[in-house]
């Protein structure tokens, strides 16, 4: 089965080609069917691979030699091991559910076939990212997902602000990508290879004469790449704007898969990061800050998808906290559970938006519980899971993160608990405003309210079940002797060594965070039961305006760059470069015009030129001979 790994990305690629080439001709329904089947087929193969890997098989499958230049050999190879097998399952599994969901959600859209083409292309790129056996293949996938994200955010390209959001996402990602690229080149320069096995082998071997600052630089460069893709400070502002895309896209790309690419990359490079403790500290700080700031912004947002978006940023911050503590498996664990419940929440919000006829403002919702029971129930499960309600998936993974953070540094733990409290609060705020209380929208909207069709609700139910049970693969040490996910991943991912917490401490930490979260859930529920949308003042206003982050970036980055580029355009480009380029062109044409005069048509003249040339050549030849 492992040898068939190329099939996994191949199916979505075929789906992309069919849908992409035939999007004008294919009937609307066909696009969804082709897209879904392609991903389902991938999922089936992934499942087979997963079980083989679980039994201990893992190998590198080389398809062909991609680049061979001098000493540098980069094969087009896939790395099939525990880490990538897990990600394969997440990507294709959730990807399939979201494809199914989309068939209904995007049903009326004109470009639905094109949409599925992009979606398939995304899945293909994401699989490439995860499967690649060297950084270059990962980078190809990395760029591919960036492209698809751009295409899908701007899918409704007729709206100006949507395309702007797409551009913003693309540019910010590119900034991160540059970091990744520089890191890759540094690896190549210092180690002469990009293949994981060789690179990590050298690192583990330890007989490389490279200073620890080099490790840190490489690690920081990679981390910059990760901040772009995984929306960390300072490159996080694109993710909330990315909600302009269709909701299933937000669920797939901007919650479950693409944004976790940064986590995957660092987890994959764990060996490197263990050698760069300084970078791990930076990651801790940035992760903590992101978790807190994003959570605080989410407290005061009114757009249902924006809340979820900031929540995603915040949760990604939590994952980086785990990484900063060197607990890569914990981060991956949270990636998995987060993929379940955040996809669920996004899809649920999509169902709501669908029912509300495109309305996303939670101030105009309320009391939807009566009309859409399944959506409400599953959404509630999602909220409980993300808030860390005991024994749901989020509880275990978040608890593990917090435990690792405590072992690393209690201050980070405290910040994490604060973040978790805010999470519980804003999630229940959203839930209550949406589903509880009485309806605040127009009469027409109320009349129109309905439960979504099966293609939407079935994925919701499946994801809800996963959100409930997904955590049991990673029971903490105090509850179970065997951390299934941890031992599964440990073959590939080496966590940094950390001091163990005593069981008592762990129980205590868990108790504190759980109780606080429960309190905040109740607070969130109660305060929003009878909402009052007075204008925000003070801190609340700052939060509503996202800490004025966009304005800040605009002032310190965008405007100076614009000014510079205006200067470059008017002075450097038009006068300098254009002048040179056009000058060269004119010179060539002029020269051409002169030289063609040699071609007079007179044989006598031709022979004269030839003889003249001969004499010159002889002179040169003989001159060289004498010397």
């Amino acid at each position, binding site marked *: 089965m492992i040898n068939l790994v190329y099939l996994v990305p191949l199916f979505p690629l075929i789906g992309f080609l069919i849908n992409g080439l035939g999007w004008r001709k294919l009937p609307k329904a066909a696009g969804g069917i082709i897209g879904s089947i392609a991903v389902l087929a991938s999922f089936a193969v992934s499942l087979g691979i997963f079980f083989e890997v679980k039994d201990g098989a893992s190998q590198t499958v080389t398809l062909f030699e991609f680049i061979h230049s001098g000493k540098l050999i980069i094969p087009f190879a896939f790395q099939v091991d525990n880490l990538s097998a897990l990600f394969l399952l997440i990507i294709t599994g959730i990807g399939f559910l979201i494809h199914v969901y989309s068939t209904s959600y995007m049903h009326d859209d004109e470009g639905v076939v094109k949409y599925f083409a992009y979606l398939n292309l995304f899945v293909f790129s994401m699989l490439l990212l995860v499967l690649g056996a060297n950084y270059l293949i990962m980078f190809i996938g990395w760029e591919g997902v960036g492209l698809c994200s751009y295409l899908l955010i701007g899918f409704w390209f007729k709206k100006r602000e949507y395309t702007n959001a797409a551009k913003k996402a693309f540019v910010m990602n590119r900034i991160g990508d540059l970091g990744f690229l520089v890191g890759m080149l540094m690896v190549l320069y210092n180690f002469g290879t990009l293949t994981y096995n060789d690179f990590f082998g050298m690192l583990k071997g330890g007989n490389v004469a490279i200073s620890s600052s080099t490790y840190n630089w490489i690690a920081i460069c990679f981390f910059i790449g990760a901040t772009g893709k995984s929306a960390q400070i300072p490159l996080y502002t694109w993710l909330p704007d990315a909600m302009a895309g269709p909701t299933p896209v937000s669920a797939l790309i901007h919650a479950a898969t693409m944004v976790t690419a940064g986590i995957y990359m660092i987890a994959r490079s764990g060996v490197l990061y263990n050698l760069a403790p300084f970078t791990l500290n930076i990651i801790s700080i940035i992760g903590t800050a992101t978790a807190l700031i994003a959570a605080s912004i989410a407290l005061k947002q009114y757009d249902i998808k924006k809340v979820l978006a900031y929540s995603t940023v915040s949760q990604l911050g939590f994952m980086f906290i785990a990484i900063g503590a060197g607990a890569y498996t914990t981060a991956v664990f949270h990636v998995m559970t987060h993929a379940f419940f955040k996809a669920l929440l996004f899809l649920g919000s999509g169902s709501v938006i669908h029912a509300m006829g495109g309305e996303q403002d939670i101030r105009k919702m309320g009391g939807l519980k009566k009309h859409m029971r399944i959506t409400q129930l599953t959404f509630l499960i999602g909220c409980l899971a993300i808030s860390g309600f005991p024994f749901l998936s989020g509880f275990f993974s978040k608890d593990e993160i917090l435990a690792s953070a405590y072992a690393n540094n209690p201050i980070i733990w405290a910040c994490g608990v604060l973040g978790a409290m805010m999470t519980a609060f804003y999630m229940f705020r959203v839930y209550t405003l949406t589903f509880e209380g009485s309806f605040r929208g127009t009469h027409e909207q109320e009349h129109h309210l309905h439960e979504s069709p099966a293609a939407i609700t079935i994925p919701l139910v499946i994801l809800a079940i996963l959100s409930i049970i997904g955590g049991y693969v990673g029971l903490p040490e105090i509850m179970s002797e065997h951390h299934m996910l941890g031992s599964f991943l440990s073959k590939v991912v080496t966590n940094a060594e950390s001091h163990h917490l005593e069981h008592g401490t762990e129980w205590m930490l868990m108790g504190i965070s759980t109780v606080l979260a429960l309190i905040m859930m109740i607070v969130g529920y109660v305060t929003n039961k009878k909402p009052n949308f007075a204008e925000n003042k003070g801190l609340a206003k700052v939060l509503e305006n996202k800490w004025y982050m966009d304005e800040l970036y605009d002032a310190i980055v965008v405007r100076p760059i614009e000014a510079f580029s205006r200067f470059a355009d008017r002075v450097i480009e038009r006068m300098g470069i254009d002048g040179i380029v056009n000058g060269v062109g004119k010179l*060539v044409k002029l020269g051409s015009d002169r030289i063609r005069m040699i071609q007079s*048509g007179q044989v006598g003249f*031709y*022979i004269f030129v*030839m003889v003249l040339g001969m004499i010159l*050549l002889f002179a040169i030849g003989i001159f060289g*001979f004498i010397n």
Partner: protein
Amino acid sequence: MKAIIAATILGVIMMFSSILMKDKKAIITIAALLLAVLLGVNIWDVMATKKGSNFTFLFNNMILISREGLWFNMLMTGCTFLYVLLSGKDIARVGTHTAEYFALIFFILTGVYLLSSYNNLLILFIGIEILSIPQYILAGSDKKNLKSSEAALKYFLMGAFTTGILMMGVTLLYGSTGTFELTRMDFIHQSSVNGMSLAGIIFLIIAFGFKVSAAPMHTWTPDVYDGAPTPFTAFMATIVKSAAFYAFIRLFQNTFGGISNHWTIVLSIITALTLFIGNLTAVFQQSVKRMLAYSSIAQAGFMLFAILSNNAVASQGIIIYAVAYSVATIGMFAVLMKLKDYTYDGFNGLAKKEPVLAFVTTIFLLSLAGIPLTGGFMAKYFVLQAAIMQGQLFWLVIFALLMAAISAYYYFRVIIAMYFKQGNPELHEPLSSGDKFMLALTCVLVVLIGIAPQLFLASI
């Protein structure tokens, strides 16, 4: 060896076929069949020698049969076959003596075979004459056309002049070494050289330079290529030129390679001049046919790198270059022959009217410009790599790359005319599906050379 005899006899048969039959179509068919036979003989020749086997000497060491030479013969015969299949109809359209034209092509091939296997300066001389004289006739074959006659006369006059120079070079070399036999000329082992030999070598450079249209001996090229009937221009610019290059590199790499430091400077000046004049002059042309004439000068500049670099990669490079350039140019001329108007304006709007034709033209032009994934790229890659390996030609490589950038201008002008300009190009006759198939095949070949150049070097 078998091929040399076969080409001669088949040429004679071709000649007599004009007496036996008058139908042009039948003659084209016979020509294609005989060429297929010749190709078969060539393949047989290649099969008969083992890979990596030693040379065989024939006729008192006058002829040297090598695997590489036979392989080159086979490729060139293949190109000729392709050329006849693509342009047979156009050859027949030139004048009344169709069978003779084909016969002359067979005789030219005899010359090609001699040039790939000579081991004696006299055979070189005879080979070049056998190669050239039929060309003089072919250039003037459109007797009623003044430009054609002019081309033939010019070519003949200047060719005769160069024959004298070639003979002079041969004489001087004989004078200084006492032999015509290349394998007995002892340049390989000695690093010094006497003045008479050097003068002879420079004479030979000039004579070869004329045949491959290197500046400043290129002056005949635009007038002759432009004036000669288009189908024969296609042949002269490709197979004949490649053969001359192959003869050139054989002599200069195998025999004069040891004393390359004495002639490299002369040849590198010729190369630079050729690249410069060929590319720059092509920019201003208004006729695509004339532009292709200059482009063939420019391409010769690149092929000269192979001779300059004087190493193993270069001798592979020249073969790849010969094939890639020949196939693309044959295709390009085949397209040109379909059109009535040879100016750039004649191509306006071709993409709308004949999308297939426009597409294949684009591929051919991309290959000529040396864009990756086409044969032209690989060809340039090989020769420039060889030049870099030689070590002292870096400045020339940079210069060549600059010139290649200029070349993109005039090649892309055609593409722009076809795709982005409005117009109604006139064709001689609507494209038959056979034409389309052949053009597509040529296209595939161009791409194949670009993707898997090793296929074309496999058997050396």
